[in-house]
């Protein structure tokens, strides 16, 4: 099951679908998303074909706790972008049941204003076992919309708690939603989701406590001791962006905005902030750095997935089962068992027999 094989007769019909999708045909776009979501050689073939056309869209992540108003806000954001003359792609992720493998994808319920707009494309995705707030194929689905020419793509994560931070690695601009009365200041200074915010929105700002929540978040940002030339854990001073204005620097303090998504208030200001962030990222060269980081992360992940796949092809189901039995019986620990399987599969050129070590 190599990528080369994927380009063969098996997926010959895809070239036509790809061409129509790149032309903006919505049926073809929907089909391609299904293909990349299913994975396998056909997905690799599609990605190889569309990849040169990607990298043009502004990817905006929207994350926050379940019920914080993500879908409703995305609905309003899409309307605002349309008022500004831009087409919008939306990927909305909801969780897959770990028991049945099924899912209920309900984000469309809140997006009813935009579902019939021919300039907006909405796709619901189930996580299919991925943790971190996105589906494994979210990035690839986004690429389909990017290649099809959507200039703005809004990516709504699953209801996130404190550690579903994958979106920040992937999106250019990450919006984190908070709601009033959702914990004290200690919640705000814990590590996690607030740290990934490029923009913080206190949604449901018509509720009591919104001003306090915004003030606590501002205070949290004041405490920020990370040097201002750091971004997402990386120093960015080594960048020398062409023509960048050093006085505007590489610093970005996440603005804290108040919004009421249900009424649409605060949304134009939010879109202004998102656009401002993107502009600053490009001007300072940070966007380029983040793109390299993201691609490296993705390459490493793809390598580990491919290696696992190749490894499993060289082993039988019985090999795996035997290893599991040995671990359950405490005859072997999981690390040694994994090592042994890698050696057995012939993927470790320097492999020693782990049983001799034991």
């Amino acid at each position, binding site marked *: 099951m190599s990528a080369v094989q994927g380009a063969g007769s098996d997926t010959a019909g895809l070239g036509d679908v790809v061409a129509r999708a790149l032309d903006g045909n919505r049926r073809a776009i929907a089909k391609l998303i299904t293909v990349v979501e299913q994975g396998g050689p056909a997905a690799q073939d599609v990605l190889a074909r569309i990849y040169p056309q990607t990298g043009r869209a502004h990817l905006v992540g929207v994350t926050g706790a379940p019920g914080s108003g993500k879908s409703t806000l995305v609905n309003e954001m899409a309307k605002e972008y349309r008022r500004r003359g831009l087409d919008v792609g939306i990927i909305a992720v909801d969780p897959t049941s770990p028991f049945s493998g099924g899912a209920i*994808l*309900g984000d469309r*319920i809140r997006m*009813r204003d935009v579902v*019939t707009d021919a300039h907006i494309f909405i796709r619901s995705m189930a996580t299919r076992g991925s943790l971190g707030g996105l589906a494994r194929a979210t990035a690839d689905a986004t690429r389909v919309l990017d290649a099809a020419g959507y200039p703005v793509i809004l990516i709504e994560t699953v209801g996130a708690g404190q550690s579903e931070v994958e979106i920040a690695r992937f999106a250019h601009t990450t919006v984190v939603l908070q709601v009033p009365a959702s914990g004290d200041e200690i919640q705000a200074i814990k590590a996690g989701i607030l740290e990934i915010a490029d923009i913080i929105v206190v949604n449901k700002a018509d509720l009591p406590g919104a001003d306090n929540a915004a003030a606590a978040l501002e205070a949290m940002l004041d405490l920020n001791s990370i040097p201002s030339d750091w971004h997402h854990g990386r120093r960015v001073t080594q960048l020398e962006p062409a023509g960048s204005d050093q006085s505007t620097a590489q610093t970005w303090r996440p603005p804290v905005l108040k919004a009421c998504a249900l009424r649409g208030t605060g949304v134009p200001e939010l879109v202004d902030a998102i656009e401002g962030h993107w502009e600053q990222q490009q001007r300072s060269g940070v966007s380029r750095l983040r793109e390299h980081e993201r691609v490296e992360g993705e390459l490493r992940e793809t390598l580990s997935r491919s290696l696992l796949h190749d490894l499993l092809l060289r082993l039988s189901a019985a090999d795996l089962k035997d290893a599991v039995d040995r671990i359950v019986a405490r005859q072997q620990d999981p690390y040694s068992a994994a090592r042994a399987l890698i050696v057995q599969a012939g993927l470790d050129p320097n492999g020693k027999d782990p049983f001799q070590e034991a």
Partner: protein
Amino acid sequence: MADIKIRVLIAKPGLDGHDRGAKVVARGLRDAGMEVIYTGLHQTPEMIAQAALQEDVDVVGLSMLSGAHMSIVPRVVAKLEERDLQDVLLFVGGIIPDEDVPSLREMGVKGIYGPGTPLEQIVQDIRTEVGSP
């Protein structure tokens, strides 16, 4: 390894607001391992067809208890056909008088499920028609 799931759109067209049945079916299909896109109430035929297209679903299930099925179903069918989606499996659940069943079938409705239909039957029919997981 291809990760293939049956995708189902569950929608309530028209003005009727009784969505318990739709939710029960959505939940049942989820528990059978399908991905269910639930659109909620008051969907127009246009909204349903747009969602079916963008979500690339295998199945569209309409929940109708208002008695408007004879006027709404043909419009949904027309909107689906307009978008070249005539291969999508269409089923209807709710209160459907026996005498309407033949005409609905003629319009292309594959499954018609009244009160008391076991969920397993709907799951089984979908699997048979769609022909995978």
